[in-house]
């Protein structure tokens, strides 16, 4: 077993009588991407704040990079880099000055600091804007600068709290690429996100946080297997064919407006063949057939009790 970059046991945090974290256990192996998913207010940011030494937990214990959070926060800080949910750049100074500030605070020699700052500005496509005050940057540029600043100290564990919020699709994919490169280089990434696709794309392991406790934890595939969300969708243009199909097939959900039928199932080959055989036997031709396997959206909604998309007899598309 590899060493754990982050190991937490029974983390608790309350604000007044509102319990935000109610006994959270986490284990993140070194060199992996771990994603914490959860609806807004689930406690994701609080977990990041505790693990990055910004706030202290009310209970529980945690080691980050092998150092105890409560007894040796300084060693933890030396090993981590944090990009919080709200832009952690100094808006009054330029992008380059922000980078050099980080280099100074990491006690890099001047020349090396300048080199690293220039490299990272280039890598995050900020070279042209480097001389402008950070307050004039767009949301996406601020976020890129924020992450570039996090990387100045060459951290071995990086916390990214909703890092792609507010980024356009291209910038998001660029950032995903950078995160993958970092992990290839041995860095551990602890990521919170509201984009399920992002967790699915990046994470080795995912934990779903709900009401301050972990509702589920595992690889993306393990989580998808947890709930039955698979179905076949048949769309028709001819109302007659649609009615025939609805009469022929069992266990369907009808959507009369769009002439669409939905068949609950596991999305397996056998289920698909049975369905097609029945349609053939009745001489019915669908205009469009799609097979839907459960994705993280289904898992997410099922586990967090959202708009019950995991339950097969409700049209999930309307829930999004």
């Amino acid at each position, binding site marked *: 077993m590899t060493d754990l970059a982050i190991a937490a046991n029974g983390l608790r945090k309350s604000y007044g009588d509102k319990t935000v974290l109610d006994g959270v256990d986490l284990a993140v192996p070194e060199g992996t991407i771990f994603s914490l998913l959860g609806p807004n207010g689930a406690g994701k940011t609080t977990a990041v704040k505790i693990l990055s030494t*910004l706030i202290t937990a009310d209970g529980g214990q945690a080691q980050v990079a092998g150092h105890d959070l409560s007894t040796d926060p300084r060693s933890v800080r030396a090993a981590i880099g944090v990009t919080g949910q709200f832009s952690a750049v100094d808006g009054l100074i330029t992008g380059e000055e922000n980078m050099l500030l980080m280099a100074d605070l990491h006690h890099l020699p001047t020349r090396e600091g300048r080199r690293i700052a220039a490299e990272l500005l280039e890598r995050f496509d900020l070279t042209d804007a480097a001389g402008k005050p950070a307050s004039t940057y767009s949301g996406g540029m601020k976020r890129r600068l924020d992450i570039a600043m996090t990387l100045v100290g060459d951290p071995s564990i990086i916390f990214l709290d909703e890092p792609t919020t507010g980024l356009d699709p291209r910038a998001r994919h660029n950032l995903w690429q950078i995160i993958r490169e970092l992990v290839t280089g041995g860095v551990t990434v602890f990521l919170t996100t509201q984009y399920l696709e992002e967790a699915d794309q990046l994470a080795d392991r995912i934990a779903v946080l709900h009401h301050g406790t972990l509702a589920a934890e595992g690889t993306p595939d393990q989580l998808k297997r947890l709930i039955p969300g698979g179905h076949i969708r048949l769309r028709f243009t001819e109302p007659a064919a649609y009615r025939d199909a609805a009469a022929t097939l069992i266990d369907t959900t009808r959507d009369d407006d769009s002439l669409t039928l939905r068949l609950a199932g596991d999305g397996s080959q056998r289920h698909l063949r049975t369905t097609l055989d029945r349609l053939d036997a009745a001489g019915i031709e669908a205009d469009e057939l799609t097979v839907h396997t459960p994705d993280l959206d289904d898992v997410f909604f099922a586990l967090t009790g959202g708009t019950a998309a995991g339950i097969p007899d409700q049209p999930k598309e309307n829930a999004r």
Partner: protein
Amino acid sequence: MSSLSLALRDSSTMLRRNLLHARRYPSLTLNLLLTPIMLLLLFVYVFGDTMSAGISGGGPDRSAYIAFVVPGLLLMTIGSTTVGTAVSVSNDMTEGIIARFRTMAIHRGSVLIGHVLGSVLQAVASVVLVGAVGVAIGFRSTDATVLEWLAAFGLLVLFATALTWIAVGMGLVSPNAEAASNNAMPLILLPLLSSTFVPLDAMPGWFQPIAEYQPFTPAIETLRGLLLGTEIGHNGWLALAWCLGLAVLGYFWSTSKFDGDPR
């Protein structure tokens, strides 16, 4: 790296950051300078004759009043600029960058020390500016020795340091810039209630204790003594005690606020 050299290095980095802020956005500091300069001109050119006649009991003597009022206004300048400190600390604390600093292995106090050093330098620069206006309209301190000049400078720096630490604490407990500005009001009001414009014994008896038992009056009397050769008496020690007391209080107040979990 030893903790002392870490503290020095990180504090000087933070000082550079604060000076950069002040250089890019000087409007806050300059606006705060308007009050003491305006009061100086108002009291000298508009009220000057009446004030001096009232104080000396003799005829109007504007140049004597300039000499009387300038030391108090120099200290008031420090009070004004530290309001800027409270505002900028409060602003800074709402920025994400402070959260970043807290998660970095830097000297914890350097964020505040950077603010204090930057503010003291700004306060000294402001005092020089207001002093220059004073000299331009006729303030002279030619009888003072070099040693007295140095002592006067030392007092201004010490006073600025003390008020700045208090202002940093006020900035830390204020949720936003408006609140910080309000909370720091006493730093502007106290010099108005001191011996800046009239001597203590010219005030009504019930008011004298209010003017006497506060940091500005002993500091003003000491500065007057050093620059103009008037009687200092026990005011020197009192001013020193006020400065050290406020600095220590402000330091522990600010650092304990900053070391806790962010709000």
